[in-house]
């Protein structure tokens, strides 16, 4: 508002004895602002009528449009599911082997599986399934499997979960062996990868491995794990005991890590994701598990 225009005042004068009367301008609000303000008030009333608004006696006003956030969500989800319905039904009917043979369905499954994997599996197994030494979470991109790398076994692992139990061996941590015996076992385990430094300890460890400690009952007589190994010519139970003869180590390859594994034991838990599993907060439906299976299988190690 320009200076030369007459502006009304509030009408009150302060300090007029001094000859400098203090007055307060009564500047009206700009018209556009005022009418916008009134319009918002009118709009709020319209909004109360159209949309859910006021709590009244234990319930609330629903609004004449009948809109609700939760209804909108259900409709959106239904719409999305309807789009995927055909192909999903097809996938649900087909076996993993059949899907793997159809390239378009396989690619669809793998990209779906990748998204599910990224949210649910990657926190432990890493983006792209590279695993993590920190918690002994297996790498899924190599061909060193604990329970098997076929489509069916991977599906079973995801659905039912796995619990790997390597018992503690040192007396101080609940085992049955003393420090020296644990050191001997460590030397013997190192010998599988040609790294044993102490022939005498190695020999004592060998005896323990196949004798009192009974390591061969899970890791096999040759130490090549429950999947490939045998004990006395018998196949081993599917307990997920790692192959000790290769260069892939779940909890570290150095002497200190291996000794710790033997002394304190290790336990690796893969939660079950199948329907009805109490272990996890969120279950994956069989179709999602199929997709994750195909994705994991595609990472490089699948058999």
């Amino acid at each position, binding site marked *: 508002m320009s200076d030369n225009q007459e502006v009304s005042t509030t009408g009150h004068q302060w300090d007029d004895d001094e000859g400098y009367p203090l007055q307060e301008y009564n500047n009206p609000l700009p018209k556009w602002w005022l009418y916008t303000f009134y319009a918002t008030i009118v709009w709020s009333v319209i909004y109360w009528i159209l949309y859910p608004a006021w709590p009244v006696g*234990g319930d609330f006003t629903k609004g004449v449009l009948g809109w609700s956030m939760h209804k909108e969500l259900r409709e959106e989800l239904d719409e999305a599911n309807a789009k995927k319905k055909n192909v999903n039904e097809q996938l649900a009917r087909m076996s993993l082997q059949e899907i793997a043979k159809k390239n378009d369905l396989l690619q669809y499954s793998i990209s779906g599986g990748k998204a599910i994997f990224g949210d649910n599996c990657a926190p432990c197994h890493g983006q792209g399934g590279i695993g993590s030494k920190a918690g002994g979470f297996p790498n899924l991109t190599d061909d060193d499997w604990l329970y098997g790398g076929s489509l069916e076994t991977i599906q079973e692992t995801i659905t039912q979960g796995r619990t790997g139990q390597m018992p503690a061996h040192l007396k101080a941590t609940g085992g049955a062996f003393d420090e020296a015996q644990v050191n001997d076992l460590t030397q013997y385990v190192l010998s599988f990868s040609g790294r044993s430094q102490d022939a005498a300890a190695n020999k004592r460890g060998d005896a323990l491995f196949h004798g009192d400690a009974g390591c061969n009952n899970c890791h096999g007589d040759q130490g090549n794990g429950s999947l490939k190994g045998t004990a006395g010519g018998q196949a081993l139970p599917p307990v997920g005991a790692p192959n000790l003869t290769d260069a892939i180590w779940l909890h570290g390859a150095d002497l200190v890590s291996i000794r710790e594994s033997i002394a304190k034991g290790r336990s690796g838990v893969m939660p079950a994701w199948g329907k009805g599993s109490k272990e996890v907060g969120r279950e994956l439906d069989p179709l999602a598990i199929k997709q994750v299976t195909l994705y994991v299988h595609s990472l490089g190690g699948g058999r």
Partner: protein
Amino acid sequence: MQHATIEKSIPLMAILTLVLVSIGGLVEIVPLFFIKGTIEKVDGMRPYTPLELKGRDIYIREGCYNCHSQMIRPFRDEAERYGHYSLAAESMYDHPFQWGSKRTGPDLARIGGKYSNQWHHAHMMRPQNVVPESVMPAYPWLAKNALDYGDIDKRLRALSKVGVPYTEEQISSAKQDLMAQALAGGDPAGLNKRYGNKVTKDDFDGQPDKISELDALVAYLQMLGTLVDFSGYQAQTR
């Protein structure tokens, strides 16, 4: 009415101020009287166990809410990533609630049971060990610090004063329940009787003979979002 009239009469101005503030107050406060009607009736909600409650205190102490929300909104992207949208009933025993408004990290409203205890341990020691691209800081002291739960019964008592339905029995056996949940031995039967059979008893932090702050925090995280039984929940048209 002119400014002058109002401004020159203190009683008139006081009355009009009172009227205005009352309208504003009523609009904001009255809905709270009806809030009970907006909380869904669901099966499974229970007050936190003493160990979970201590974990929640640590969650607040460490400022987890600064980066993690606990509020899944009813949108498709959130439903597909995090699961069922959060219900009012799920935070009815929270004082204060931990909805949060910032998501530098993911929402945690349904983190319970999603990952193993072992993962939580590794993650708290150094998040980058399990999630290389993570910007979350490490919390290694949680595993070192012994949990201070000397005042746990008083905490339950305080919450019962603001409406959390802890029974006298739950308050008096708080210490015992806390130990039973974190340690082998203890009295798991009592814990289950007081908090239901779904309560997870475990060695949450990988240190079987010690109750650390990590035990409490992981117990809390593993419970989050798992209490409500959604099989019996009919989504109201809300």
